[in-house]
Each structure stands twice: as C-alpha cells, then as structure tokens.
C-alpha cells in the first residue's frame, strides 16, 4: 500500500515536471506566427523549420560546440582541483581551514551584474578574451567552491579507518586516493560532475561578457531570437529543446555512479 502511494506521488510529480517541457517541445515544432495566433494542445501544422535553421546556420550550431568545449574544460578543471582539496578539508586540521572553507562558498554570493565589467577588464588584461579557457576559468569561481563543498560532504561520510588501514597496508597517498578512495565516493563525484556541468552550461552573463565570436556560447546566441519584430518563440523553443540534450547525456553517463553509492569492504 505504502509503496503504491510512493509510486503514485512520484508519477504525478514527473507529469507536472514534464508539462512545461512538453509545451516547449510543442512550441518548437510550430512557426512563430502559429504560436502567437492560436492555442493548440499539439502542433497542427507541424514544422521542423526551427530545427533546420539551427542545424544549417553555423552561427547557431557553433554556439553548442563552444558551450560544450568550455563546459567540459570547466568540469574537468573543477573536479581535478577540488578532489584533493575536499580530502584535505574532510581529513585534516590546518591553519585557516574553517575560514578558507567558508570563503570558498562566498564566491557564489555576489550579484553578478556589476561584476561583469571588472571581469571583462581582468580577462582582457591577461589576453584571454574570447577564448574557451577564459569562460572555463571564470566559471571556476562558482563551480570549484561547489565541487569542494559537495565532495567534502561525501568524503566526511567515509570512516577514517579506511584511510588508516590502507596506509598501514603500505599504500602511498596517490595510489590510495585514486584506487580506493575515489571509487568509494563515486556517488559524490557523479553528482559533482553533473552540477559543475549544469551551472556552467546555463550561466549566461559571464560567458557572454567574456566572448565576442570565437567562443560565443549557445545561451548568448539564443538572445538573438529577440529582434525588432519581437521574439521568435518557435526558434527559441527549438534551441531550448536542444540545450537539454548534452546535459541529459552527462547525467546518463554518471547515473550508475550516483545509483551505486557506497560499498564497504573494498579494502
């Protein structure tokens, strides 16, 4: 009985979650004039015109390529630097550890609007403007702290006896860390990778500020659907549907790590 209620609740939640997404899909398969002219539960004059435009116009599809490049860079950098740091925070006491840990998170707390101009100046001074690495580095500002915090939470859930046993058994730190410890927190690494990807993927302001043409992200190109005649809702919806695809693939790849979780007795 209880199990059934759970499933029913979950199904209702997922239906509600999918309705706006269905609406976006519906809009993406209609022309803009059609969307604005009448209400339609499903596209009556179905057209793939909006998708065709995105796939044939290089200034559109290159936006996806650019976004994927800097988001992948950012996710790799974030995980790479955050894993050892999170281990240090979860296992060791050192001068300024608590202050440092909280300071990291404060970098997510400033309203972005006024900070965009100094960011532009900083990255043009170091000559990185309009490159993928500039956006990847700038996004580290909010993704690295998040990665450290999430990973630290998972690492602190692992009993320290595991580390001690491994060191007694003669494991070096890097070997212990890579072959024993990281597999233990797979769920955490999976979630962290997804969140880094996600926050970098949808960020608009910094990505738009730091790029001109060569590295322009899809989220910035989508603002081009606003023109003098108003918004092209159909085109925007099609672009929106396509922005979901790469992230859905990422979560598909990390799903097993998230689901498996913890397995003691590995040592």
């Amino acid at each position: 009985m209880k199990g059934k209620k759970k499933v029913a609740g979950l199904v209702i939640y997922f239906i509600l979650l999918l309705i706006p997404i269905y609406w976006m899909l519906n809009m993406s398969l209609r022309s803009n004039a059609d969307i604005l002219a009448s209400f339609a539960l499903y596209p009556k004059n179905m057209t793939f015109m909006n998708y065709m435009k995105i796939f044939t116009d290089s200034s559109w599809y290159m936006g996806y390529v650019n976004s994927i490049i800097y988001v992948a860079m950012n996710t790799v950098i974030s995980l790479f630097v955050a894993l050892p740091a999170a281990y240090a925070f979860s296992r060791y006491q050192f001068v300024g550890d608590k202050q440092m840990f909280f300071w990291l998170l404060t970098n997510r707390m400033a309203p972005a609007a006024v900070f965009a101009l100094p960011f532009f100046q900083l990255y043009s001074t170091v000559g990185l403007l309009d490159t993928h690495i500039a956006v990847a580095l700038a996004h580290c500002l909010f993704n690295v702290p998040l990665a450290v915090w999430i990973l630290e939470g998972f690492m602190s859930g692992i009993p320290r006896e595991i580390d001690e046993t491994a060191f007694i058994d003669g494991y070096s730190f890097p070997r212990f860390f890579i072959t024993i410890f990281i597999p233990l927190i797979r769920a955490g690494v999976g979630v962290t990778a997804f969140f880094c990807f996600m926050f970098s993927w949808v960020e608009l302001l910094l990505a738009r500020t730091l790029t001109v043409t060569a590295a322009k992200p899809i989220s910035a190109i989508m603002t081009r659907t606003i023109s003098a005649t108003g918004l092209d809702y159909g085109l925007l919806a099609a672009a929106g549907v396509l922005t979901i695809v790469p992230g859905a693939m990422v979560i598909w790849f990390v799903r097993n790590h998230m689901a498996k979780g913890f397995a003691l007795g590995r040592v």
Partner: protein
Amino acid sequence: MEKWSNNKAWLLVLPVFVIVAFSAIIPLMTVINYSVQDILAPGQKVFVGTEWYREMLGDYRLHEALWRQFLFSGLVLLIEMPLGILIALAMPKKGWGVSVCLVTIALPLLIPWNTIGTIWFIFTRPDIGLLGAGMNNWLGIAFDHTANPLDAWITVMMMEVWHWTPLVALLAYAGLRAIPEAYYQAARIDGASAWSTFLFIQLPKMRGVLTIAFLLRFMDSFLIYAEPFVLTGGGPGNSTTFLSIYLVKIALLQFDLGPGGAFSLIYFVIVLLFSFIFYQALQRVGKGEKV
C-alpha cells in the same frame, strides 16, 4: 570525527585557492573601487566616500525589494527542501527506473535561465499558453500574471519550484545512496519504523548534502534575476521586482556604477551574513547526533 592536524594539507588546497582567487579578488577590489567614487565619464572620477552607501541604505525601493526577496527565498526554502527530500525518498533504489528518474528530473536544470523565463511566459499566457488557458477556460479561474500581482507571484513561485526542486532532490538522492546498507539492516533488526529510520538514520546521514542544498537554494534564490525578469519584467507595478532586478535597473540601465557598486556590496554582505548564520545553525543541529 577527530581530524589529523597537519599544515601540509594546505598543499592539497593550494590549487583551489589559486584558481578561485584569480577570478575573485581583482573584480571584488574593482567593485569596491566603484562604490566609493562618482564616475562622471571614463577617466573622470571623484572620490565620494560613503555617499553611495548612505544613499542606497536610505532608498525605500531597495527596502521594498529586500523584503520581497526575503519572502521569496523563505517560500522557496519552505517548499523546495521538504519536497526535494520526499522525491528523493520515493525514487527507486535500483533497476531501470533509476536511470529514467535521474534523467527526467534533471531536465529543468539544463535549460538556460532566460529561456526558462520565456517558455513560462508563453506557457502561462491566458490566450495561447497551456497553464494560462487551462486556468481561465477549463477551470474558470481568472488568472493573468501580467495584470494581477498575486498571480504574478504564484507564476514565479511555480516556475521556481519547477526549476529548482530537482537540485534538492538530486543531492538528497545521492546522499541517500551513500548510506551503507548495514545501517538499514541494523534498523530492520531493531524493528525501526520507516519514520524513525528516516529521522535517526537517513536525515542525520544526509546532513552534509542537505546543508549544501539549503545554502545553494538560499543563495541562488536570493540572487535570482533572469527568470522573473523575462517572465514578469518585475511587474505588474513593482510587485515582482526582486533585489537583482532593482540592482540592474540602477547599475546598468542608468549606467551608474557608483551606486550600483555600493548596492552590490550591501547585497553581497546580506547574502554572506545569512549564509553564515544558516551554516552555523545547520552545523550545530547535527552535533548532538552520534551517528
């Protein structure tokens, strides 16, 4: 848990410090610089001390936006945290259902924020949107977020809950999966009910991820800009002019970097202060538990 005391651990933290500080320190200094100057023209600046701070702190529209912001973030946390935990508890633990649930639940998170605002704008329009037309034509409830402030609030809240509850659910789910099976076995042997298993095993074990979820939702909802701006433009009237929307009005539309800088820093300090209080409180909650 007692920690090992060792200052060499700094070596593990150093790369993080360098990479974050690179993007953090100089822009912050620049904004502090803006906030104490009157920038008349490029290269023409006058030092004005705390004038912008006094002007901003006395601005009644800022106070209104701030209260609105507190109400908004409060509601967000009250709705999304319990809902997210419930969803995580209801999600299957193994089998094909896991993959389906994880991918589906992540969908709203992956859409750029300005697009979410635009889609919801159409979705809730009384004439051509599913939700708007459904409310007005099928249910007979007059619903128009462009005219009625309450409807605008309801729309923004629905969008926000739709968009961000998955974040809480995903974190909570990963936290649940990280609990060793042995704990559940022990609970079963003791004959613990589902409720006491939740209260004494799952909740304490999820404290870490839930702290992050809580702080993230607080910070991000307090800084929310693109979605409500695109959806309602801050209106009708000023009813959904949240703090960021007002900040952008001052800083960018009037191109006034001085007051904008002062506003940003006041804003930053408020978020910082509350995050710190929440963090300390959440740290303390779990201290009594010996799990």
